[in-house]
């Protein structure tokens, strides 16, 4: 642990200028957003709105956490939203019929199964990640439609809704779950064999292979973990909104990618981390909250997400961040 700590100190002491740009620009964006929204909307700086933003950020973080780990390996998981939607449909259906345990297990298992399928295709099938997970996106969407037949499930039991809508010591439960997830994933990334492998594969896959790393197994674990985390996020989301339908996952991919990009994780892998995504999720939640407070139509949401993705990656590139290999 002391070795870890000294390494961390050394890394902060010798932070390269590109990482410095990422960190400073994100903190500046955060400060600017808070300042601008406080001036523009009298409602922004209220406790109720603060709780609202933090809960939104927590949900956003859970949806982007698995994706972050995949992106760190130099891959991508375009199916995160669709897997979440499918897991939400299955579990909401079971839970609303009173099978609480089966519902929870079905969300986790369906997420894990989709993630494993992605992992097999990418790691063992050698299929480019964006195309394998893009196919999986439509398979998961399709299965969701087939399962729901256009119906909407609502009215979940109160005991279950606690994990999405409840409070502990005045803090929303999703925020507590997100913080726990952040700690667990941070430790996983920085203090385990799998974590080292994730950075190594993303940083230099050839070197990782030559050093004898079982790359296929590690990649399989990463995509499976991403699927599993989508299942976890699905449970919190349906507990929060108290409903599920087959279109639930459709609009979740762009925000998840936006949160990862805002978090400064390199799209080519090897650089970044889960803490960045947490910051990115807070920025994203603030932007969405600001748009709502200012009365911007929700029709604009996708355009805003698209613009955030393009601008944040472009800014990092122009700001000298070596996020992109030329």
């Amino acid at each position: 642990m002391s070795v870890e700590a000294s390494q961390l100190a050394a890394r902060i002491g010798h932070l390269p200028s590109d990482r410095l740009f990422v960190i400073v620009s994100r903190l500046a964006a955060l400060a600017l957003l808070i300042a601008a929204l406080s001036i523009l909307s009298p409602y922004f700086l209220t406790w109720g709105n603060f709780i609202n933003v933090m809960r939104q950020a927590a949900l956003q973080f859970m949806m982007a956490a698995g994706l972050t780990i995949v992106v760190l390996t130099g891959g991508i998981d375009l199916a995160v939203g669709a897997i979440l939607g499918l897991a939400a449909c299955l579990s909401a259906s079971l839970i609303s019929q009173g099978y609480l345990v089966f519902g929870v297990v079905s969300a986790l298992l369906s997420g894990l199964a989709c993630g494993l399928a992605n992992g097999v295709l990418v790691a063992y099938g050698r299929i480019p990640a964006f195309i394998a997970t893009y196919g999986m996106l439509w398979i998961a969407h399709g299965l969701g439609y087939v399962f729901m037949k256009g119906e909407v499930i609502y009215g979940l039991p109160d005991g279950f809704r606690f994990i999405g809508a409840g409070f502990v010591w005045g803090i929303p439960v999703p925020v507590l779950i997100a913080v726990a997830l952040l700690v667990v994933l941070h430790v996983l990334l920085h203090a385990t064999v799998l974590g080292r492998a994730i950075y190594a594969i993303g940083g230099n896959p050839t070197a990782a292979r030559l050093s004898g790393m079982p790359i296929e197994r590690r990649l399989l674990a990463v995509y499976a973990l991403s699927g599993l985390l989508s299942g976890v996020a699905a449970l919190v989301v349906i507990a929060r909104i108290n409903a599920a339908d087959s279109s639930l996952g459709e609009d979740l991919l762009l925000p998840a990618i936006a949160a990862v990009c805002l978090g400064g994780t390199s799209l080519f892998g090897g650089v970044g981390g889960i803490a960045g995504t947490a910051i990115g999720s807070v920025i994203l939640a603030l932007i969405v909250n600001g748009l709502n407070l200012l009365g911007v139509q929700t029709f604009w949401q996708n355009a805003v997400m698209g613009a955030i993705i393009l601008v944040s990656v472009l800014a990092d590139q122009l700001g000298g961040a070596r996020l992109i290999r030329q």
Partner: protein
Amino acid sequence: MRETAAHPQLVERMPLLQAALHAPGAFYLLAIMGAFLTLWTPGFFTAANLTNVALQVAVLTIVALGMTLIILTEGIDLSLGPVLGLCGVGASLMIVAGYPLPLAIGAAVIIGACFGLLNGTLIAVVGMPPFIVTLGSFGIAQSIATVLTQGDSVVNLPSYFRWFNDGVFLAVPVPIWATFAAFAATWLLLYGTKFGRYVFAIGGNRQALILTGTRVEIYHIAVYVYGGVLAALASFIMTARMNAAHPTIGVGLEFDAIAAVILGGTSFEKGRGGIAGTVVGALAVGVLRNGLNLVGVGTEWQVAIVGLVIITAVALDSLRRLNT
């Protein structure tokens, strides 16, 4: 071509086997689906239904032709579907407002070209990954289309507009003519010009092309612009078929187009493939959807099945690469 050249002796001995091994998955899918549907569903092998399939795949083929060039450069354009939707909405709004048709066509082409320019610049000049860039513009195009119509469809199009889908010229429907024209233009571009050779070279070995002193970025951007313009032109057939322009009508079309390209034998790596395969691929996707409709499989299942077909085709392509 490249693979057969690597095994000259094998080719001499077993040309048929070799050809069968290297035929794109679309041929097999089309043959199997065709045989199955002809035998089991009486409604399939009729002139009316086959014409219907051809009309349905016209839009898909035109979009997939542009997508082929993009994938040949080792890129992808996920925004083509929503861009098509936006072009349709933009042009229809202008026509309903009383502007003449040529102006509306011009506007649609400019919208398509602008998105291509945006995508191409960020990909070729800045060096951002294609799927991220085009996912971003996916959201932007879809949002703008929805905002323009406030989520509704654009209706009350003048009756002449239906000509784009219903018109017949020399006994051949207009969408089929349009598909032929798009194919011929793309063929000439790809196999008859410097631009075409550079498309293969950008995918095959971009670094070498840069070292020859070529302004690679310009050609690379042009590929995305071409894809956007084809999508803009296809939007007129789509709008005429629906007799309305809906902002989200194109969403998912990019998915079928990618499926058509991959089934047609174009690889995601090293600029291998071509547009003839893409036409067969588009037909295969069209027959697959038509067949699933005839057999009574719902759209929900179709979405999942086409996703599975894409993954299988890419997996087979990857297996074949490992073997050769």
